[in-house]
C-alpha cells in the first residue's frame, strides 16, 4: 500500500512539470502472446504475430516512470527531486540484487572451504569465483552509480551520505533500507506539494493496417470499440475475400488512370483541382490572418517559456496547440510533373496530411481559439507584463473569422480528400479510424495499466498475413485537450501478422498482358485487372521468406480484350508472385480468342501499403 501511495503522489507531482519533453521513448511494454511468444517493446524491429493470437500487454508503472524524459530546465522547482526519486527507485533494487549476490558469495565460500583438499575443490573454486564475479559486478554497478549521484546532488549527499556510510559497514540490505526510508520521506513531501496539481494519464491504442485500410483494435480497459465473435483465419478459402475485391477495384481504377496518365488528361485534372484548393486555402489563411497570428503566438510562447514558471505550463500547451493547428495552413505540396506511381503516392500522402490538418482546424479551431482568448485575458490581468494587447486582439479576430469561414474550410478539406482518393490514397479511412475515442487511464489509481487484444475478435476486419498491428502508449497530462501536445512520453511497437504453414490466398492486381501466339493481332501489354488464388507457406520467424521474398504459386483469371469481335474473353494462367503479391508474372491462354499470353502484374494496394510503411 505504501508503494501505491508513493506512486500516486509521485505522478501527481510529475504532472506539474511543463510538457516540453515530447519524443521521449518508452521501451518497457511487455507483450505475451497466446502462442507463447514474448516481446519487449518498443523497438524499431517489427515482430511476427501468429494471425490467430491474443496478446497480453503488461506495463510496468515504475519502468514507465523511468522512461519519461523530464524538462531539462534546471530552474524548474522539483526537478532535482524527480530525478532523485527515479534514481533512488533503481538504487533500492540494485542493492537488493547486490545483497543476494553477497549471500551467494558466502554460500559458495562455505562449499569451497568444505571441499578444500578433496576432489571437489576445483569445481567448488570455480563456483566460488563465479559467485565473486557476480557479486562484484552488482556491487560495483550499484555503488558507482550511488557515488556519482551523491557527487552530483549536494542536497542528496547531505541527506543520505552519513546514513549510507553507516549502513555500508553492515550489509547491502541495510543500505536498501536507508534508501527506502528516504524515499518515503520525500514522497510525503511531494504528495503535499502536489495536492492541487494535475495528474498524468496513459493512453494505449492499437491499430491494424492492411492494404490501404487502417482500423482501431479494441484494447481492454482503454476504449469501447466493439469486438466480434472469434473467427479463426480461413486457410483454404475458394472465394474472393474483401481484400481481393478491394484490390480488384483499385486495379480497375488504376487501369483507367494509367490510360488517362498516358494521354495526359489525368495530370491536367489533378493540377486544376489542386489549384482550386490552393486558392481556397490562401483565401482562408488571409481571412484568419494566420501569418500574423503565428508570429504573435511564437513571440508569446518565447515570453512564457522564458519565465520558467511551472504554473504557465497549461497556457504554453494551449498556445502550442493553436500554433500547430494553423502552421503552414496555406501551403500545399507542389505537384511535380512526375506521373510515376510512387511520385503520385507521395503527393497524395502529403495532401492527405494537409486534409487532416484542415479537419482538426475545423473540428477544434474555434473552440481552442475561444479558450485561448479567455486564458490570455486572465493572464493579462494577473501578469500584465507577459501578455500584450496585440496577441489578445489577433487571437480574438482569428476566432471570429475562423468561425465564420467554417463552411469553406470544410469544403477545402473534402476537396483535398477527393484528390487524395483520386490518386489512390484512401486517407479518409485512416482519419476515421483515428477519430475513435480513447479512454485514457490515470496513472497510479489502483487499477493496473495492463491490457490485451485478441486478433480473432477484431470486428469488420478480415485478417490477412502481412497485416500490421501497431500498439502505442502515450503518457500525457490529464485535462489537456490535445494529448499529443501534452505528451510526456511515447512508445510504439509494431507486429506483422503471419499464418504459419500452408494457406490459399485470393488476390487481385493490375496486369500488363502481352499476347504471344494465336490468330489475334499482337497486344502490347494491355492493362487489365486480374484475380488469382495463390498457395503460400509461412515459416515461423523467417522474416526474409515470409515478408520479403513471400512467394506464391497459383492460378490467375483475367478479362481480356484481344479480339474486338468477341464480347467475352477469359484468360486463365499459371502465375507466380513475389514480395507479398506485389509483383506478378504468369503465362496462360485466352480461351475465347485462342491465344497464349504472358503477363507481368503489379498490386497497387500492396505497393501503396509498402510505400506507407516506408514513409512511417
Amino acid at each position, binding site marked *: 500500500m505504501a508503494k501505491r501511495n508513493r506512486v500516486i503522489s509521485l505522478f501527481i507531482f510529475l504532472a506539474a512539470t511543463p510538457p516540453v519533453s515530447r519524443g521521449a521513448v518508452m521501451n518497457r511494454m511487455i507483450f505475451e502472446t497466446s502462442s507463447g511468444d514474448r516481446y519487449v517493446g518498443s523497438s524499431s524491429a517489427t515482430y511476427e504475430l501468429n494471425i490467430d493470437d491474443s496478446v497480453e500487454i503488461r506495463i510496468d508503472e515504475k519502468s514507465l516512470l523511468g522512461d519519461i524524459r523530464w524538462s531539462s530546465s534546471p530552474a524548474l522547482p522539483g526537478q532535482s527531486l524527480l530525478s532523485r526519486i527515479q534514481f533512488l527507485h533503481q538504487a533500492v533494487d540494485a542493492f537488493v540484487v547486490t545483497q543476494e549476490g553477497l549471500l551467494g558469495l558466502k554460500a559458495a565460500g562455505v562449499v569451497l*572451504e568444505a571441499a578444500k583438499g578433496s576432489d571437489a575443490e576445483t569445481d567448488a573454486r570455480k563456483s566460488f569465483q563465479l559467485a565473486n564475479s557476480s557479486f562484484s559486478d552488482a556491487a560495483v554497478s550499484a555503488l558507482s552509480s550511488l*557515488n556519482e549521484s551523491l557527487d552530483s546532488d549536494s542536497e542528496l549527499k547531505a541527506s543520505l551520505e552519513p546514513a549510507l556510510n553507516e549502513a*555500508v559497514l*553492515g550489509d547491502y540490505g541495510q543500505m536498501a533500507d536507508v534508501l527506502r526510508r528516504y524515499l518515503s520521506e520525500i514522497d510525503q513531501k511531494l504528495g503535499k506539494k502536489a495536492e492541487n496539481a494535475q495528474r498524468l494519464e496513459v493512453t494505449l491504442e492499437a491499430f491494424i493496417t492492411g492494404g490501404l485500410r487502417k482500423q482501431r483494435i479494441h484494447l481492454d480497459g482503454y476504449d469501447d470499440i466493439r469486438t466480434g465473435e472469434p473467427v479463426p483465419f480461413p486457410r483454404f478459402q475458394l472465394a474472393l475475400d474483401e481484400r481481393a475485391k478491394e484490390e480488384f477495384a483499385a486495379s480497375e481504377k488504376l487501369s483507367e488512370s494509367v490510360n488517362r496518365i498516358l494521354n495526359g488528361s489525368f495530370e491536367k485534372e489533378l493540377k486544376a483541382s489542386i489549384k482550386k484548393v490552393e486558392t481556397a486555402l490562401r483565401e482562408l489563411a488571409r481571412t484568419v490572418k494566420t501569418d500574423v497570428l503565428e508570429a504573435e503566438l511564437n513571440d508569446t510562447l518565447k515570453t512564457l517559456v522564458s519565465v520558467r514558471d511551472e504554473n504557465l505550463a497549461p497556457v504554453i500547451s494551449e498556445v502550442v496547440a493553436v500554433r500547430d493547428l494553423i502552421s503552414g495552413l496555406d501551403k500545399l505540396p507542389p505537384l511535380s510533373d512526375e506521373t510515376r506511381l510512387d511520385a503520385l503516392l507521395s503527393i497524395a500522402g502529403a495532401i492527405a496530411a494537409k486534409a487532416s490538418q484542415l479537419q482538426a482546424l475545423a473540428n477544434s479551431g474555434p473552440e481552442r481559439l475561444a479558450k485561448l482568448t479567455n486564458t490570455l485575458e486572465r493572464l493579462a490581468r494577473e501578469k500584465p507584463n507577459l501578455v500584450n494587447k496585440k496577441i489578445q486582439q489577433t487571437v480574438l479576430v482569428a476566432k471570429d473569422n475562423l468561425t465564420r469561414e467554417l463552411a469553406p474550410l470544410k469544403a477545402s478539406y473534402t476537396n483535398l480528400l477527393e484528390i487524395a482518393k483520386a490518386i489512390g490514397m484512401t486517407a479518409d479511412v485512416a482519419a476515421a479510424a483515428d477519430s475513435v475515442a480513447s479512454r485514457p487511464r490515470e496513472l497510479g489509481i489502483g487499477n493496473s495499466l495492463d491490457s490485451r487484444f485478441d486478433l480473432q475478435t477484431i470486428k469488420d476486419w478480415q485478417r490477412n498475413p502481412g497485416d500490421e498491428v501497431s500498439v502505442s502508449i502515450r503518457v500525457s497530462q490529464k485535462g489537456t485537450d490535445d494529448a499529443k501536445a501534452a505528451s510526456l512520453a511515447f512508445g510504439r511497437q509494431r507486429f506483422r501478422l503471419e499464418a504459419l504453414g500452408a494457406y490459399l490466398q485470393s488476390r487481385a492486381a493490375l496486369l500488363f498482358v502481352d499476347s504471344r501466339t494465336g490468330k489475334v493481332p499482337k497486344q502490347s501489354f494491355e492493362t487489365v485487372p486480374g484475380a488469382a488464388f495463390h498457395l503460400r507457406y509461412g515459416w515461423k520467424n523467417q522474416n526474409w521468406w515470409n515478408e520479403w521474398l513471400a512467394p506464391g504459386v497459383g492460378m490467375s483469371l483475367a478479362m481480356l480484350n484481344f479480339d474486338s469481335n468477341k464480347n467475352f474473353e477469359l484468360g486463365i494462367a499459371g502465375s507466380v508472385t513475389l514480395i507479398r503479391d506485389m509483383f506478378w508474372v504468369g503465362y496462360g491462354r485466352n480461351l475465347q480468342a485462342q491465344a497464349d499470353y504472358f503477363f507481368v502484374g503489379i498490386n497497387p494496394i500492396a505497393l501503396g501499403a509498402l510505400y506507407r510503411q516506408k514513409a512511417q
Partner: protein
Amino acid sequence: MASMLKNTLILPENDGPLAARLLAAAIADLDVVLMLVFGKDASVEQVVEWADQLCNKTRVSETYNVRRVVWIMNPAANEIQEILKPLLGAKEPVVAVLNFHDKVAGSFQDISKVNPLRLELEFAKGHKV
C-alpha cells in the same frame, strides 16, 4: 582505536623482516581479497577501522573470510618495499586492493577522499575474477 580489529593484520612497525614475511604470507593466501592500508596517522587509523568492519559482511566461517585488511604502518621499510614495488609500481597509494590474483583492483591516492562507501566500492572491485 574505537573497536577491536577482527579482520586486520597489523604489521610490526619496527621489524622490517618480520613485517615483510607476514605481508608475503598474506598476499600468498589464496581466495582472499586483500586491502592494504599504508601509514599511521589518525585518518589512516579511521580507514583501517572502516575497512575492518567492511570485511564482516564477507565472513564465511570462524576461520575464513573472503576479505582481509593488512595495515602497513611503515611502508618505507626496505623489506616491505621489495614486496610492494612489483605490485604497486613507483607511486604508492594510501589504500590498495589486491584481487584473488594479487593484481591491484582498486586504490586511493588521497586519504581525504576515502569514506566507507568508496572503500566498499574498491573492495567490491577486488572480487572480480
